[in-house]
């Protein structure tokens, strides 16, 4: 796995070198690499800053650059279920499993994806929710389906309602032709774990550079303490919670005692 980004990167360098005989470098910096969930956490807006560095001695391209940032959260497996009517009652009759798909997925651009690259490139580079690879288990097989598959549509829509899946074509602003700023809204229900940010630079409809960075969403302070206790010392945690319940009940009966 560690070889793949490297290979991809060198491939891009070669490809870029072959077609344009020049290469840009992307330098990015994230406002916060560790998002801490504390008791007053209601989501956080992250900012990604970056510059496009042209080759030494060259200037930025006259045609300008385009940028796509893909943020993927920790991978999880989900089951999408469809209800249908059986003897007058609506029951979950059909289900499909989405295997190891991102629990959070944001695809951001500086303008509509269709203007950045053609359909073929977008599909190849997984630009846009329609083109992102969502592996499904269909019987014994694994694979993505056509983009208008009802289960896929429903899955993306439901994750979107939770603000976990979205694409924003105007989330990235170029402050100068080479300096950009991207706003990444992390919702309150963002799953904990490590997130990966893939930044792809386009010019003239083709990808010319890419880089990535990462961030972590972790529970901190009281939230971390409770969550860890619940998982690691479940029985003790349960006893303490039950005792807490008894104390609350006893206190109330003392406070409100009338006789």
């Amino acid at each position, binding site marked *: 796995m560690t070889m793949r980004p490297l290979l991809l990167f060198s491939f891009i360098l070669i490809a870029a070198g072959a077609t344009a005989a020049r290469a840009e470098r992307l330098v990015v910096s994230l406002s916060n690499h560790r998002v801490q969930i504390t008791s007053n956490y209601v989501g956080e807006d992250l900012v990604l800053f970056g510059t496009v560095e042209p080759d030494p001695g060259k200037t930025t391209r006259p045609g300008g650059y385009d940028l796509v940032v893909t943020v993927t959260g920790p991978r999880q497996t989900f089951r999408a279920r469809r209800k249908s009517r059986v003897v007058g009652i*609506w029951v979950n009759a059909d289900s499909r499993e989405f295997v190891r798909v991102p629990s959070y997925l944001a695809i951001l651009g500086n303008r509509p994806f269709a203007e950045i690259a053609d359909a073929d490139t977008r599909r190849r580079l997984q630009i846009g929710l329609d083109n992102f690879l969502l592996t499904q288990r269909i019987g014994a097989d694994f694979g993505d389906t056509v983009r208008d598959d009802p289960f896929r549509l429903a899955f993306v829509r439901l994750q979107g309602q939770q603000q976990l899946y979205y694409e924003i074509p105007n989330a990235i602003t170029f402050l100068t032709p080479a300096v950009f700023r991207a706003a990444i809204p992390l919702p309150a229900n963002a799953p904990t774990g490590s997130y990966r940010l893939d930044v792809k630079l386009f010019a003239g409809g083709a990808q010319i550079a890419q880089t990535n960075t990462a961030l972590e969403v972790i529970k901190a302070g009281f939230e971390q303490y409770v969550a860890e206790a619940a998982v690691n010392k479940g029985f003790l945690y*349960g006893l303490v919670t039950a005792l807490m*319940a008894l104390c609350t009940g006893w206190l109330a009966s003392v406070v409100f005692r009338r006789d």
Partner: protein
Amino acid sequence: MQIYLPIADMPVNIFLVLGMGLAVGFISGMFGIGGGFLMTPLLIFIGVPPAVAVASVSSHIAASSFSAAINYWRRRAIDVALALMLLSAGIVGTGTGVWLFTELRSLDQLDLMIGLSYVTLLTIVGIIMIYESVRAELRARHGQPPIIRRPGSHTWLHGLPLKLRFKRSKIYVSAIPVWAIGFSIGFIGAIMGIGGAFLLVPMLIYFLRVPTATVIGTSTVLTLVTMSSATVMHAATNHLVDALLALILMVGGVIGAQFGVRTGQQMRGERLRLLLGLLVFLVGLRFAYELVVRPDDLYSIRRVGIL
């Protein structure tokens, strides 16, 4: 004011949850029930994952029932012997219920089973309660004396062997129906995530002829023990109890319950039962509506696992 719940993994408005605790606590104090059948759906409605809701509500019920149990204890309204008999069978019932719960969950039909059992139980129990209390109300209005169920009146259940005497309740009944009732309450409670007091109280009254003086106090003890052990079990096995959510709920719940008890004591028994019957019936209808009417969204997603 928003506060982030560490296990439910979501922020909630602390005053909304406190208010829900107060409201359900008021109702539970008024009728002498735990209120789980109201609280669990309410929490699911505001977005708490159903499994976390069921697990956390159990500790909320433990708190309010302990507060109630202390009050009943002071008034000598608890039949300890009867409570212990019910509990011994109740634990077996809970174990069986948890086993079936796990089986159904693996078949992906747990939601349906919970929905169906809510509909069946709540509507039937609701209708019976409404019918009984309306009849009593009408009798009172026509000037007829209410049917008095003396502690000594017998049904076929009293003909069964293994008879035991429960002094505090002044009843002499076979252990078999006592165990049967304890088992079914434990079983139903584990599957539906409720304390079951709204089922237990009528069962004790109609089947065992337990007098009104001890029936609610005794059922409170059963609720207290089953819900406390459910809290520990849920925490130890599924790690789903949200202590922070439970704390907010129980603080609201115990305060609400105190006011509920006062309101309840000012009302006549029949009227109280009619109101509770209507409430139970309406919640049952709400579940029936969900099952029968085409849902807004046919699709739903569930996190299967972190792989």
